[in-house]
């Protein structure tokens, strides 16, 4: 995951977290934990030369976010299917 993607992802998740009324301190904490966990998973997958699609990335992020807040994970996963 490159720096710009990580920054964009953080920004998006922070907006969602604020809209969901999650305290900013807690949100920042589990967003950074989520991104760290996702980066580790991506490193493992890339070392085993598996192709990673955008959908795989969304699934990984959702899986990690669910450990902290199910509503945030749900909004992140289903955002594009609302309309």
């Amino acid at each position: 995951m490159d720096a710009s993607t990580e920054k964009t992802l953080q920004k998006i998740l922070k907006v969602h977290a604020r809209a969901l009324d999650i305290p900013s301190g807690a949100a920042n904490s589990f967003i950074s934990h989520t991104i760290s966990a996702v980066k580790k998973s991506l490193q493992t997958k890339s070392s085993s030369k598996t192709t990673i699609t955008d959908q795989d990335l969304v699934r990984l992020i959702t899986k990690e976010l669910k450990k902290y807040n199910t509503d945030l994970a749900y909004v992140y996963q289903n955002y594009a299917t609302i309309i």
Partner: protein
Amino acid sequence: MSFITSVLILVLAMLIQAFLQLNPSVFAIFYHNALGKKSPKVADNLSLYFFFGIEVFCAIVFLSIYFLLSTIFTYFPYFMTNIFPWIMSGIFMALAIVSFFWYFRTGHNCKKTTKLFISRSLAHHLTTCAEKVTTRSDAFLLGAFIGIIELGFTLPLYIICTFQIIYFTELSSFLIIILYIFSALLPLFIIHAIFLSHHNLANIQRFRIRKKPLFRITISLSFLIIAILTLISGII
């Protein structure tokens, strides 16, 4: 055309307008992003202008069709009383079928979503527009733009409602137009109230997915009943 038939058609048209899902979905995204990027006060302020956009669009379309139908009625009364109801009945039958099968997208990965009939690129564009609303004029224009997208489903409703209220007094017609515009805004008021009662986009979306079959059946059944009522009133 009997008074009861006219009232039934108007009520069903308002029901369909209230159950259509493009306005609520765009508003939910817009409000969610306004809460996330701005503050509740700004989100409420922008919502007002979003509602204005929808209201103004509805009012303009309604009044334009009212003027047009009144003119056609004056010059072509035979067409309006004998042929027009059959045409409208056919259109509503077609809409009943189309809305049941194609209003919500179908497919194996669409069951747990509320994806609508519009193209994916337009849906993405609407989501982006809803995210980027920062000013009152943006909110107003977004509200009006959504009205244009759903015209395929709503234009026949405007036409048939205008056709009913032509026979009413001016005050009754005015009140019915106000009520119709309010029916278009009702789901947005409900979503706004849900947000204010500390629920969030996740809860609203889960609710919409659970009620998706109800929305689909209500919209298509209402179209079908309007078609039958229009046909009956055309025959009698």
